[in-house]
């Protein structure tokens, strides 16, 4: 039995300090107060003074409360029993089920050796043309959805989760509204995907420290499943809440802020999580799809900015649609050469024409006269937005490609598309 300390010397923010011996950095402790028990993590050692971050927050903790050190860092149970279950940020069941204690694994483990990574090569099909056709998602990719509050990013995530061909879905919810949490639960339940899903959900009303644990706990579990050969999709929503939690804690710890109050290690902190996306040679993979809401729709804000430097592209979700401009999947070249011969060429041609449509639209709104070509583009743009960009469109890639050709044929002559003649000969629809 480990020693219990019952004299808390200082309480500031969510950090308490006790005098204790034989404590190790990163170790967990259990704090018992009148309001219940909470885990706490050692975040600073200074001689015999031990600073702990209390997961449930310090509200209601008295200086006489008990602190018992557990002798191990933060761990989570790992087994197939996790499937279909819902937990909170510190791994306690949220669904009324039993607490899992077998086979505990540490979270926030070391980085993958770059020499053991392989070049990604498998596409993740989602049934959304703006993703499959124009910016293919690739297994082991890390990709955020850049959006603003109010956009339907959570329904989009839920849909991708339902349709993506993966073995296991792990949802890491940070600062989720309770409604959104229920939405995810209901959607996956109705779609029959709950049995292959695991939720780690921190809702907006939960203690802020637990928000910080969500990505680590989700990714630690994902890593173990991937090592067992599973293809895991990790959904992290919303990483902006995670970064804001980091900021809040850094400020209470009196760290020097670097940019708009965020700690100087924001980049490293985000990278440590996103870089967990990996394709293990001879085993499974982890694909990370995150949501980053941009405060004030400003992509230069520290959170989306640092994220953009880490991730392999981004999807811009605006006005309920994935924007073709700005959205980018850096890994799409790895897969879209092997899907169908016309994939790359059609993708480029359609985007170029859509860009031209945008120009015509601008000209039109400025009152310039529309040429015949402009009118063709206007027609094309309207169909493109309806049949390709609308998020309710749900078709496999091959059908999306066929639709693409049909749309082109409806609006343009063969020469106007700028596509190579051999492709036109093969794919141009015959009426």
């Amino acid at each position: 039995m480990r020693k219990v300390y019952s004299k808390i010397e200082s309480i500031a923010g969510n950090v308490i300090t006790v005098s204790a011996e034989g404590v190790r950095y990163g170790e967990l402790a259990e704090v018992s107060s009148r309001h219940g028990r909470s885990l706490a993590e050692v975040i600073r050692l200074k001689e015999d003074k031990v600073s702990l971050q209390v997961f449930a927050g310090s509200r209601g903790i008295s200086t006489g409360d008990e602190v018992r050190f557990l002798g191990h860092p933060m761990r989570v149970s790992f087994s197939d029993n996790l499937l279909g279950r819902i937990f909170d940020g510190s791994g306690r069941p949220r669904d009324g089920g039993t607490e899992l204690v077998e086979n505990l694994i540490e979270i926030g483990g070391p980085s993958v050796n770059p020499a053991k990574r392989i070049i990604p090569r498998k596409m993740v099909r989602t049934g959304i043309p703006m993703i499959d056709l124009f910016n293919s998602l690739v297994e082991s990719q890390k990709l955020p959805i850049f959006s603003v509050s109010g956009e339907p990013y959570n329904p989009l995530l839920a849909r991708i989760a339902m349709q993506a061909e993966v073995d296991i879905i792990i949802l890491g919810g940070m600062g989720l509204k309770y409604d959104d949490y229920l939405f995810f639960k209901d959607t996956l339940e109705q779609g029959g995907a709950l049995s292959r899903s695991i939720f780690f959900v921190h809702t907006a009303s939960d203690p802020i420290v637990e928000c910080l644990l969500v990505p680590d706990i989700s990714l630690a579990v994902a890593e173990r499943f991937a090592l067992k050969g599973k293809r895991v999709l990790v959904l992290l929503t919303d990483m902006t809440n995670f970064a804001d939690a980091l900021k809040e804690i850094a400020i209470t710890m009196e760290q020097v802020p670097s940019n708009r109050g965020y700690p100087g290690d924001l980049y490293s902190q985000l990278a440590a999580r996103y870089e967990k996306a990996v394709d293990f040679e001879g085993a499974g993979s982890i694909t990370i799809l995150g949501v980053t809401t941009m405060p004030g729709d400003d992509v230069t804000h520290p959170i989306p900015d640092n994220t953009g430097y880490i991730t392999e592209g981004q999807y811009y979700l605006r006005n309920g649609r994935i924007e073709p401009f700005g959205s980018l999947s850096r890994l799409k070249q790895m897969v879209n050469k092997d899907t169908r011969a016309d994939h790359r060429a059609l993708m480029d041609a359609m985007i170029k024409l859509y860009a031209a449509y945008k120009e015509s639209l601008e000209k039109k709104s400025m009152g310039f006269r529309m040429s015949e070509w402009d009118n063709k583009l206007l027609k094309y743009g309207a169909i493109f937005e309806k049949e390709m960009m609308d998020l309710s469109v749900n078709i496999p890639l091959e059908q999306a490609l066929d639709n693409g050709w049909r749309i082109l044929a409806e609006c343009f002559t063969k020469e106007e598309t700028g596509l190579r003649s051999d492709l036109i000969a093969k794919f141009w629809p015959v009426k």
Partner: protein
Amino acid sequence: MTETKGRVVGVNGNMVTVAFDGLVTMNEVAYVGVGEKKLKSEVIRIRGNLADLQVFEITRGIGVKDPVYFTGELLSVRLGPGLLQQIYDGLQNPLPELAEKCGFFLERGVYLSPLSETKLWSFTPTVKVGDVVQRGDTVGTVPEGIFKHRIMVPFNFLDTYTVKSILPPGDYRITDTVAELEDSKGNKHPITMSFEWPVKRPITAYAERLRPDKPMVTKIRIIDTFIPVALGGTYCIPGPFGAGKTVLQQVTSRNAEVDIVIIAACGERAGEVVDTLKEFPLLIDPRTGRTLMERTVIICNTSSMPVAARESSVYTAVTIAEYYRQMGLHVLLLADSTSRWAQAMREMSGRLEEIPGEEAFPAYLESVIASFYERAGIVRLKDGSIGSVTIGGTVSPAGGNFEEPVTQATLKVVGAFHGLSRERSDARKYPAIHPLESWSKYKGSVNKEMTEYGREILFRGNDVAQMMKVVGEEGTSLEDYIVYLKSEFLDDVYLQQDSFDPVDSAVPTERQRYTYNLIFEVLSSIFSLESKEEARKYFNQLRQKFRDWNGTEWESEEFTGKEQEIRTLIGEKKKGTEERALEILKKVSGS
């Protein structure tokens, strides 16, 4: 290990405070014992009997009273044959060997020998008993791939030495004593094929530093012609995310006309390193006929690896670069990205509770960046041969704003600035280097006045384009409109390259000069064009033909044919040459 005893008294992130009794050296390496493992760290501050250490590993599990062992040595790299083709982490741990030993993950506290101690190298002595040598002098050579790797008197041998013994030609290990040297006091020093050198001290065992005036050819037209880099020079590539910094570095690492390329992947995506790791062993270097890997060293500390080692990774890289420079080789060091390195400094500075400078970067940021870039240079060695280290660093400015401290500190010390722009990369213009904002202080391979003329057209064309946005095409004069078309033409067919085209993706100097002469003719010609419509059509034709020409094999039949077509097309409409251009041409042909 020294006699000094230390005990941990505090842990804060990756900083550990240690109480010691005995002597401690600033920046010496110490090991923190935790359980069975010893974690490498570096002394970064000493106050009274307390030393602050930055630990190069995850600090989880360290407790107060854990033992600390001091080595008395500064953070060093091991230099010797076998560095080429290696993939190291920031502390010169070989990653593939580490993977063999530990599997998928980077286990902490495991340090392997950076160079193989069992491999045999075929040694040829170049000195004989009785010869007098100094630091940096060659005592023998071993072949390392296509290079003659010089076995040198270690750079920290500051005396003058007499060779007492030297091994005959034969196969030896790097740990074998190859020679014995006697200093002026009569002490004997055995030397092997490898030795250690502290990473933060520049290697200066050369005769003199020269002015960098020979261009380093990257085969990227916009760089070589307009914003060149010199052998032994420095340049930086700042740009927002997604503008193509890393792609540009990768292309440069493939095509640059240098002997050795050292890639320091510092705090960036692991996936990008993997591309290089897996592709380089398969790509053939046209200059040598061997794989690119044979001229490459990769130092890789990606974003999720421990932050403190990120800082040391750029120093490890530059030290290895300087070592090969001592062999009379031209070395290119590509650091991606120096911002991450600066951020690592910022994190540590924050933990040390130093007074922060701008954006919380430490006050010494500028001097540290300056002294890093100053380690580039072209030098004449004692034996007369010339070697160089060229440093190219990317910068990842927050929000793509070049006003931030790291970009500004870097701009002060580099010789060339290749600024990437989001607009150009969004418009799928490759490379996305902004031709108007970028600059270079070095001499390029194309005549300066001719390129200045081209730049002026770009500036004027840009002005016209801005104006046209307001007044429309109708409100622009035909003369201005042609300037605009000329600038677009220059951008389309010369500044941009087709990265997928095997010919156009890498253009040698000779061809650049040749092509630019013809471009210059177009830019300086006065054309008889009657209307904007006609002008646009004409330039479209020119553009198409030039693009096709860019794709033809140098000096092939097709090449001459296309060139003839272009010359005919120019001849059809040309009615004269601008006077300033004539003057330039006169000067060029005169010189």
